[in-house]
């Protein structure tokens, strides 16, 4: 396979004092650094590390909020209950399915949007850019409501507009069964989050060196060849970062499902399952165990991306 990328450029190391001797100045700088960044670091840990540790601890107890007297240590039994329950596997399946569908569609659609934005005439570019930010900025609940009302059997317009499509009739109940419910949840998610992915890809496109494009053009490469052999290989890092972010974001889907189906017809996601155990059923022990499992799943996905696909996170952090 021939791909055209520029050779990695030599990084110039900043000139610094020889190692081993820490001057007073650099010691003071260290102290100041932690003094300034410390509070933010501490707050981040306090609002995430503490709760997840608490969740791990709670998950080892049989604990119902309405029945605090009978709180007892049961080891890993909660995990056993969950992992043998078809409800968990159903929720995990739905979550994975929605994640795969939405991320795949968003990547293709987002790439197309990015291409149009990159090439759009300067006269229409600000308009397009403003428009594309609107789905990003609209709150997820509003997006979910808009799509729900559009397909709703009573209030929607979709049924009367699309009767000519096979399978759509005036009384098609989109939220009446599993398949169509998932379809609409995916549509709403795709609409809402494609702009974000396309902005990341647009930034990636801007990094592809123009020289390479010109050179390929001179050599007689077709548009498709330039796309697959020059553009895409050169923006691999941006694509992987966008994929990682969207996958993890899609995996915690909650809002749209809550609004559109409230988990009816087997459309419950893992986040929704955790919510229902904790908030609706007040099963702190079981809910915590689901939360911990969800957290582990997210860690696993992140780890797979970073190790398996070699996503360079220094790209993502803005840290060179």
């Amino acid at each position, binding site marked *: 396979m021939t791909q055209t990328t520029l050779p990695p450029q030599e990084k110039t190391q900043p000139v610094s004092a020889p190692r081993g001797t820490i001057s007073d100045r650099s010691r003071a700088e260290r102290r100041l650094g932690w003094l300034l*960044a410390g509070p933010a670091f501490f707050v981040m840990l306090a609002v995430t590390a503490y709760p997840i540790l608490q969740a791990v601890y709670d998950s080892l107890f049989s604990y119902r909020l309405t029945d605090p007297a009978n709180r007892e240590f049961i080891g890993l039994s909660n995990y056993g209950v969950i992992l043998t329950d078809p409800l968990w596997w159903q929720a995990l399946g739905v979550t994975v399915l929605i994640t795969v569908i939405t991320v795949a569609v968003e990547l293709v659609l987002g790439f197309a949007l990015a291409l149009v934005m990159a090439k759009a005439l300067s006269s229409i570019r600000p308009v397009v*850019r403003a428009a594309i930010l609107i789905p990003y900025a609209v709150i997820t609940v509003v997006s979910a409501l808009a799509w729900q009302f559009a397909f709703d059997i009573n209030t929607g317009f979709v049924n009367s507009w699309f009767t000519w499509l096979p399978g759509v009739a005036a009384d098609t109940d989109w939220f009446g069964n599993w398949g169509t419910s998932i379809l609409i949840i995916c549509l709403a998610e795709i609409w809402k989050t494609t702009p974000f992915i396309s902005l990341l890809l647009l930034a990636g496109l801007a990094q592809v060196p123009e020289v390479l494009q010109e050179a390929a053009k001179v050599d007689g490469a077709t548009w498709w060849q330039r796309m697959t052999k020059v553009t895409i290989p050169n923006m691999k890092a941006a694509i992987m970062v966008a994929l990682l972010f969207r996958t*993890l974001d899609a995996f915690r889907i909650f809002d749209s499902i809550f609004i559109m189906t409230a988990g009816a017809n087997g459309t419950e996601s893992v986040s929704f399952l955790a919510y229902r155990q904790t908030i609706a059923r007040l099963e702190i022990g079981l809910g915590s165990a689901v939360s911990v499992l969800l957290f582990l799943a997210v860690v696993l996905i992140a780890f797979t991306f970073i190790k398996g696909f070699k996503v360079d996170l220094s790209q993502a952090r803005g840290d060179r």
Partner: protein
Amino acid sequence: MSTREKTWWIIGGILILLYCLFPIAWIVSLSFKAPSDIANGSFLPTAATWQNYSDIFTGSASDLFLPALRNSFGICLIATFISCILAMFAAYAIARLDFPGKTLILSTALGVAIFPVISIVTPLFNLWRQIGLYDTWLGLIIPYLSLTLPISIWTMSAFFREIPWEMEQAAQVDGATTWQAFRKVIVPLAAPGVFTTAIIAFFIAWNDFVYGISLTSTDASRPVPAALGLFSGASQFEDPTTVTAAAAVIVTIPVVVLVLLFQRRIVAGLTNGAVKG
């Protein structure tokens, strides 16, 4: 570029506009529908009415909507403010100082940003009930920091790296005092980055639904997204659809205004923090 190519890009642009605005247009149209229009299956109302808007501001739904609007603005602004202050110090340290642990702080921010929100909710729900933070502003502001702080640190450090800090010394060489150099040179250079970060952080806090629905129970602190979720559930009105749509339009207006005013900056902020060239 040939005329034909131009036409294609314009068509592409129009398709994007349609894609982005169509669902919004639908919810706006729905918010102007009268009860008799709801089930007729048409996109536009036969006769536009302001009834739904007067319902949410003065009528039957105002008890649910107005307190939620106040809570959302208050909680999101405070959370944004706190995280911007904290992030400002952290980003300054990351961009300007050389100290071990920079990578640790940025990786932590990344980890927190991808953290599954619901995993925080379960323990907090329990803890907040015990210490009396359940259903209070503070009880939402604290977890909101987990949403706003990582993105703030990240976006702001990306912005601060771009600042030509040497200008501070240059000003001092020219006779400015340290304070003057900071106020006249550094503040104007850093302000756009801080401001953009604040907008993005505000969007994220404004969008929250999980914390809002889980950690509140009354209008003492319930934010708008959670209230919207309950509109469609509770049957306080005959058919809540159009009233919900009107409320949805109202909460969408602030973000659309911000987007239209600051689109160029927001794009720079989102992509700067995420993908760095």
